């Protein structure tokens, strides 16, 4: 039987490395949505639409 030691209560290095508070994820998500909205208001969607609906000569190897 494993008797919990004082040492066991601390996370090993590997688990500490991956530990990330949930609020941080939510903050990042909100920030990402904010960036997306900024991009939309600046008309980036239109620029992408124009590029993507015409043949991208560079992409297909024409130049």
């Amino acid at each position, binding site marked *: 039987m494993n008797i919990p030691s004082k*040492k066991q209560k601390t996370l090993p290095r590997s688990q500490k490395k*991956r530990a990330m508070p949930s609020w941080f994820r939510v903050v990042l998500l909100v920030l990402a*949505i904010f960036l997306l909205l*900024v*991009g939309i208001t600046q008309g980036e969607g239109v620029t*992408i639409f124009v590029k993507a*609906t015409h043949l991208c000569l560079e*992409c297909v190897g*024409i130049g």
Partner: protein
Amino acid sequence: MNQHHNAEQQENKTPLRVRRGWIQAISTLLSNIHLANFLKGRVHQGPLKQVCVPGLNCYSCPAATASCPIGAYQAVAGSPKHKISFYVVGLLSIFGVLMGRFICGFLCPFGWLQDLLHRIPLKKFSTKKVRPLRYIKYFMLFFVVGLMPILFTNVAGMGEPYFCKYVCPQGVLEGGIPLAIANPGIRAALGFLFSWKTAILVAVILLSILFYRPFCKWLCPLGAFYSFFNRVSFFQYHVDFDKCIDCGKCARACGMDVDIRNNQAHPECIRCGECEKACPTGAISHHFRFSKKKTTPSLHHDQEHSN
């Protein structure tokens, strides 16, 4: 005890891992839903082209449903009006925070192609000795995709999509070759650049047969971007150190050269689940959640990591 372990392992084999090939196939189909355009030899022009798919999928593919995020970023950064695409960074960050490199493992059409090529029964080689090559993809992300369209512009202030033009093999595979077959006008316009990009495509195909996902490991700027989100994404892997017997099967099963026991959110981990499948004790699991599960690591691992 063994039965208990087997049952647990069976449960832990996760339908997600088992269905990965199907998910990849469906994702590829959804990313390229307008298949009839292959015969017409022209690019789809629907409103969804304003949106980016999460994986690498050329928007000049005749069947493409939406836009390629790397192409879209360069289109915006290369335009005279903008220098950074907040739209693409924001959209990719949303994908990244939700899934991290799960996108590479499950949703990217070019990743799926490399997976299929690697199944060809020929001798396979490890990439562990060439690990530093993985940093090339960060160079691709920050310099080739991020900076070059801003730094090298023409007289009108427009930058070219340098990654798409000189590196990306997906454009030739999905766009150049099918369009050249269906459209004589495009076929007549092909020259040195097409030959160069075809050579890269052939090299990636050959390397994919011999090595696991060489493009994802070494060149893909999208994989580099998502790698920053593996630590923060809602989709996470978990190792139960009470169950782990340190057999190392997970590390040997990993095609991306990751030892999940050391880092469950490694930037190279594409969340494919091979380690989860290989684990004989069911110690590895994945979860998608908003709150972090509390874990009690075993004394065995505690001692090992303190050494």
